[in-house]
């Protein structure tokens, strides 16, 4: 099928297709229609529509009281989201790049994440903090990180990371309706932006009606016998492409899209590894002290004998994300690195 419109396309089958960005916007809009306490704020979420298209069209539809452009004051407006959430609103706050967490992390992890606990469960903070993550387009060390492991490490926040339009919509609706703070991290490379290289699955079928995708449920996006690849976000697509390629060589790969880091769907991972006995973790976040180590611990704590081959990690090798194209490609989990990781774990 040829996709001519970069944002929406209705093929003859009648299945409506959207970009991930449009799916997120649709989710937010449907929730804003349903619940007057839902509102959006952040930098350039209004007339611009979100730098990565996550709020496009919302201002025109809901007005500036519910779609609020903020000054460049992340501590101030994330804290304001927390205060508003405590007092009965359901804010969706955008932190433009997750890399900017450094100027507002106190509000995120000392306040948003802890107030429910400190209050003994008496104060709820139902808000969504969404942020763009990921590299691959030479944006340098301060605009290319994923950092989901950092948020997942700190208790009190759910962390969701959609990889495709349908999941993006369902997870957004679930995040908005959740009574907890939810960090919603969208990779720029899955948004279907017209100004950035797209993967083929950045546009996909999305049901028109509102629906929730339960937070904490991974998806087995490809079944296979020979090895399990656990991954998330843009790396899901690289992995699926590699899996297709390897199928031709007789390597049958199972691919798990975690979709949520907190809660982590350990059951789905363990069931798959029990079947294949081989695990590759593909993670665009830093290698050490993160997701890949957590999954290694999950297996070691459950049954160290599950693995028939040593675990393989394809992650950013503990360096900041470099700028120059060959340097950046060297550290990111590219299809080449994923392929070589799978081949090595399978031993063929």
């Amino acid at each position, binding site marked *: 099928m040829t996709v001519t419109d970069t944002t929406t396309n209705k093929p003859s089958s009648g299945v409506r297709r959207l970009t991930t960005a449009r799916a997120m916007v649709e989710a937010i809009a449907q929730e804003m229609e349903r619940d007057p306490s839902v509102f959006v704020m952040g930098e350039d979420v209004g007339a611009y529509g979100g730098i990565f298209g996550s709020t496009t069209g919302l201002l025109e539809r809901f007005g500036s009281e519910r779609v609020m452009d903020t000054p460049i004051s992340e*501590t*101030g407006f994330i804290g304001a989201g927390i*205060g508003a959430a*405590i007092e009965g609103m359901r804010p969706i706050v955008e932190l433009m790049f997750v890399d900017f967490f450094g100027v507002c992390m106190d509000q995120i992890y000392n306040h948003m994440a802890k*107030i429910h606990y*400190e*209050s003994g469960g008496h104060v709820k903070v139902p808000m969504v903090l969404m942020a763009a993550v990921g590299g691959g387009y030479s944006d340098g060390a301060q605009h290319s990180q994923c950092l989901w492991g950092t948020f997942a490490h700190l208790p009190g926040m759910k962390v969701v990371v959609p990889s495709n339009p349908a999941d993006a919509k369902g997870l957004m609706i679930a995040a908005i309706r959740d009574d907890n703070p939810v960090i919603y991290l969208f990779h720029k490379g899955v948004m279907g932006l017209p100004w950035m290289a797209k993967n083929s699955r950045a546009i996909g079928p999305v049901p028109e009606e509102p629906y929730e995708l339960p937070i904490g449920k991974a998806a087995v996006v490809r079944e296979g016998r020979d090895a399990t690849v656990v991954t998330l976000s843009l790396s899901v697509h690289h992995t699926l492409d590699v899996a297709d390629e390897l199928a031709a060589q007789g390597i049958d790969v199972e691919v798990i899209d975690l979709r949520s880091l907190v809660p982590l769907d350990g059951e789905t991972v363990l069931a798959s590894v029990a079947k294949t006995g081989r695990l590759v973790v593909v993670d665009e976040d830093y290698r050490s002290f993160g997701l890949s180590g957590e999954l290694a611990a999950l297996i070691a704590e459950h049954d160290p004998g599950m693995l028939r081959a040593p675990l393989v990690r394809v992650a950013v090798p503990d360096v900041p994300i470099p700028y120059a194209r060959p340097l950046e490609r060297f550290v990111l989990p590219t299809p080449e690195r994923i392929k070589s990781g799978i081949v090595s774990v399978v031993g063929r």
Partner: protein
Amino acid sequence: MGEDIKVQLYTTMVRIRTYEEAILREYHRDKSPVFDIGAGRIPGEMHLSAGQEPVAAGLCAHLRPDDAITAPHRPHHLALAHGVDMKRMTAEIFGRESGLGRGKGGHMHLFDPAVHFGCSGIIAQGAPTAVGAALAFKRQGSDRVAVSVVGEGAANQGGFHESLNLASLWRLPVVFVIEDNGWGISVPRSASTSVPSNIDRAAGYAMPGELVEDNSVDGVYEAAGRAVTRARKGEGPTLLEIRTIRLWGHFEGDAQAYRGEELAQAQASDPLPIYEQRLLKDGLLDEAAVAAIKEQAVNEVEDAIAFALSSAEPAPEEALEDVFA
């Protein structure tokens, strides 16, 4: 100002001081001869508010239970003046199951949603959440007000300035109160702050600023009244600075050697006996009335402490609960 109000302000201040003296006693009861911050029936840091009662009494007299306050790490006076349940607050400070946070918060993290009271132990970081509460109140079409109380040290934090800008930009019903006790732990205002007074900073955010220089509860009451009324009428935020005094240490165990002569001056300026003498002299109170107010405060405070001590400690495994709703 009516005479009834003055008696009410005095009563509130007595109640706070009685409370802080009792917590001081309980805190140190089993921390001698060797002071161990983690030992005893009340462990951990303890920041008491003696000397700062005028701020809480004068401010909270204008607030309704549906108005929100975010307090800093030194929160007891504000909690009591705003109507936080004294028994459950005390139980929280004693780390008991019946506490406001079921023992998970402690004295710097008191939350009572019944009166929209919250705390932050991180300097200045309660200000953004107060802005958010005010944003919610405005969106909900109510005339509720949010108050952020911080110390003067917080006025040098980025989050404080971001909050003033947001509140003014969005014309939100916020009252920002700086309790200037002159000391950021051991650093005096003169060594931390570039402006003679923090209300000079209000102009930078196009909001009115008002300074109460003498820690007088009447002065706080009047200034806070103007600020709260302004916020309630939808006219936007105000910055108040109250020059108050820290009668005791930054926290208990602070030997305060850095204070020198200033400490004696502060103790000579204790606002409670000064106000009491004034009300006696003006004939608003007599000795019997003073004694009755104090007795009532002692009874209430000792009841709260008895309630805390009679409450169970949380079961250890309850530590695993309440991370998520």
